[in-house]
């Protein structure tokens, strides 16, 4: 039986005029000995949930829903009986702050106070126990006589933890306990909580925006957004394959999960009010009309996971099955460039296709873009076949940016001619609109949109500028999927870095999906969500960028990972015995960092 069961918890704050709904129908349960994590950005209703379980919200809040603790409905419990439950049964560790502790009492007294009050322990015994607790949370007992303002933030957090543990509760609610502490304390707190769970079978609800901290402890995760559960399920599965765009955004914004990758937050701000539709509608990369009209309900999606999304989670944007393509060489021999490639691209993700030169990457890019027709196999894009539809001709289709910036735009074209070419070809808008769009998109790729620049010839531009022009030309068609075929390989390191960051930034902001094709593993790790490793026309390994890099399964991937040259300061193993890729410095350094 569940220790705590929360059903349809709703909570709104009555302000002077408006009514803010902080929690909007949350249900979950905590089993004995289980650790549940509640994650979400600030303002998603995490703390309100905790406080409403504890009945600590005050008069201005309007709470409804059922909260059953140990078989007893505590949602309507009178304050007096609730008081008995607090500390001894359910204790809460508050987020560190000066106002949480009484500034005129020593911290020792404050920790001893609930013990005396709730467990009927004598003051002396309480003091002894308090000293025990202090050493347990890693504080020297001499600090018992200190006042809160004399302690550092991390120490105060430990005091609060000691306080919550004082009455040996069965359920511990931790609200952002690590947000103000340094990395060492964070790790110590984690170890402590882990011990508590192991030794005493304590149940916990860990509330935090720190996904790595939560995921290291919790067995189940609940992702909150705007007071609603958008996704919940077993931690490992959720972190490795988030299904809701919001969960994916959170995972992507967590530095510990993709240690190589640049950090990119979820674009946009928390929606103030979306009275009718999905709360994530405005920031979602795959919203459809239905999302604006009605909020999605939480539905099971297998493996104990549940998700609230009208589109059933992150949708598949493109699906390629069994692609085969052959080149005929001059001497009548054939070259199997694609040999049964299966590929999926999801909405709003960056999929990197990595492989050495000649592995069929560019051919794959051309086939996926619909430029080359495969001998066999199909490419479905938004349920339509790529080779029958006209995805390059329309807005919201597929666009491709090519490798060589010097041939991808004509020397004779001015910047304006080059960028607006797709509009000219498809006769979209009148000349003024075309010009306006050209300017917009040039600003997007951080090129000047002055008349002078518009009239410059592409041949007068540098490689980086021309690649931006090519990028602008692709973006003017507002693609849902952008295929970038080795776009930085012809550029110098600095220009390449600029282009790559620009591209990733645009991808993040505009929410299009991207297939990034490269032979440069290190570079792709900076931006890729998933990596597909390609060798001799086949995809030998696909997965989370982090996993592919740190724990490659396929022999070829191992070789690829091991082929990186370290800097002068790294160790270069000349002829390592057995050339075990696991032993290469690249992998080791990655693990060390983890």
């Amino acid at each position: 039986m569940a220790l705590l069961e929360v059903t349809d918890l709703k909570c709104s704050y009555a302000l002077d005029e408006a009514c803010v709904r902080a929690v909007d129908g949350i249900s979950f349960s905590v089993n004995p000995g289980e650790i549940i994590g509640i994650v979400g950005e600030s303002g998603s209703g995490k703390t309100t949930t905790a406080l409403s379980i504890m009945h600590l919200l005050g008069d201005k809040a309007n709470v409804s829903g059922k909260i059953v603790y140990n078989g007893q409905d505590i949602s309507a419990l009178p304050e007096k009986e609730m008081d008995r439950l607090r500390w001894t049964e359910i204790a809460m560790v508050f987020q560190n702050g000066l106002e949480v502790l009484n500034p005129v009492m020593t911290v020792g007294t404050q920790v001893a106070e609930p013990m005396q009050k709730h467990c009927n322990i004598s003051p002396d015994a309480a003091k002894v126990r308090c000293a025990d607790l202090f050493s347990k949370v890693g504080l020297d007992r001499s600090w018992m006589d200190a006042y809160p303002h004399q302690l550092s933030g991390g120490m105060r957090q430990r005091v609060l933890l000691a306080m919550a543990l004082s009455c040996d509760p069965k359920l511990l609610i931790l609200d952002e306990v690590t947000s103000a502490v340094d990395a060492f304390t964070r790790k110590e707190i984690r170890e402590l909580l882990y011990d508590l769970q192991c030794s005493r079978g304590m149940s916990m609800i860990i509330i935090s925006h720190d996904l790595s901290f939560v995921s290291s402890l919790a067995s189940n995760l609940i992702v909150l957004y705007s007071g609603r559960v958008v996704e919940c399920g077993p931690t490992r599965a959720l972190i490795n394959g988030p299904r809701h765009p919001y969960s994916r955004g959170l995972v992507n914004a967590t530095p510990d999960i993709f240690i190589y990758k640049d950090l990119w937050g979820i674009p946009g701000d928390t929606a103030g009010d979306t009275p009718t539709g999905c709360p994530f509608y405005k920031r979602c990369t795959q919203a459809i009309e239905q999302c604006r009209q009605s909020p999605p309900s939480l539905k099971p999606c297998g493996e104990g996971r549940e998700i609230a999304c009208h589109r059933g989670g992150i949708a598949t944007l493109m699906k390629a099955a069994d692609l085969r393509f052959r080149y005929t060489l001059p001497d009548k021999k054939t070259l199997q460039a694609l040999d049964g490639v299966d590929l999926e691209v999801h909405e709003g993700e960056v999929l990197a296709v990595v492989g050495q030169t000649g592995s069929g990457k560019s051919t794959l890019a051309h086939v996926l873009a619909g430029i080359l027709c495969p001998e066999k196999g199909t490419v479905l894009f938004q349920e339509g076949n790529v080779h029958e539809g006209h995805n390059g001709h329309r807005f919201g289709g597929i666009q491709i940016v090519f490798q060589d910036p010097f041939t991808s735009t004509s020397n004779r074209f001015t910047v304006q001619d080059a960028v607006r070419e797709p509009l000219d070809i498809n006769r979209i808008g009148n000349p003024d609109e075309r010009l306006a769009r050209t300017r917009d998109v040039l600003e997007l790729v951080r090129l000047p949109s002055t008349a002078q620049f518009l009239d410059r010839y592409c041949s007068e531009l540098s490689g980086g500028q021309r690649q931006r022009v090519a990028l602008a030309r692709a973006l003017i068609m507002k693609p849902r999927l952008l295929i970038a075929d080795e776009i930085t390989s012809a550029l110098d390191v600095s220009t390449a870095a600029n282009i790559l960051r620009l591209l990733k930034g645009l991808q993040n902001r505009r929410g299009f999906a991207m297939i990034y094709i490269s032979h440069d593993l290190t570079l792709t790790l900076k931006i890729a969500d998933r990596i597909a490793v390609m060798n001799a026309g086949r995809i030998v390994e696909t997965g989370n960028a982090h996993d592919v890099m740190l724990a490659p399964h396929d022999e070829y991937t191992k070789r690829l990972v091991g082929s990186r040259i370290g800097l002068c300061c790294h160790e270069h193993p000349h002829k390592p015995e057995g050339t075990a890729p696991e032993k290469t410095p690249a992998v080791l350094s990655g693990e060390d960092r983890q």
Partner: protein
Amino acid sequence: MRIVSFLEDTAGSAKKIFSKFSIEGKIGVCGIALIVAIAILAPLISGYSPAKITGGSLEAPSSTHLLGTDELGMDIWSQICYGARMSLFIGLAVALIAGIGGGALGILAGCLGGTVDQLLMRSVDILLALPSFPLLIVISAFMGPSIFNVILILVFFSWAKPARIIRSQTLSIKTNTYITAAKNFGATPFYLLRRHILPEVLPVLFVSIISITSYAIIAETGLAFLGLGDPTSKSWGMMLHYATGFKSIYFTPFWQWWLIPPLVALIFLLLCLAFIGRDLEQVLDPRLRQAGGA
């Protein structure tokens, strides 16, 4: 509108190209302009009709006959003026027909590829392998002398070169990814031709038109000199033919005003064309260097 802007563009780029010319190139352009002016203004500046007997036979140059007269008493200067018309007309007509036609075939072969390409390129190979001048003589002798026939024969022998050059140029343009990109955006073949291929091949085509012009003028003169030209026409080649046909002309002083003027005019015209051709090639060289393929 589009045509006007295209013309403006052309004028602009012509000016740009002219400014890059060497002194010889500029002389060439001026010389051609002079010859064209003479040809156009022939009735005004010649003073006499070239086909009328307006003076005594074989008169030396004087104030009445600037360059003297020929055996029939026709004015040499007048013949030179009208001959310029003929030489330029034949040269340009052949060059334009062969150049534009060959260029179009080249683009077609380059764009379509496959059987059409093979067929065209093999015909080009054959034409280029044939010794053109002897055949020219045989065919024009067989077909009979007329301006139309001369043009036809010259066109037949000169379209192959531009066709081959333009084909390889088209092939090399086709490999640029901006073509792929434009196709991906939904560009029609006509669009690609208008916006991408034609502007790239036109300068190259222009160079080869100029070289065909020279070739055609020489060939026409040669045919006329051999007596295979149109006997009723007044061309420099016919003048040379008649002058050299005059018995023992070298023992008389007549060659000085009968033979020299058409020869000088011819050499001057060809030199001018050569200068222009050479400079144009230099100016457009980076593009030519791109050309690949067979």
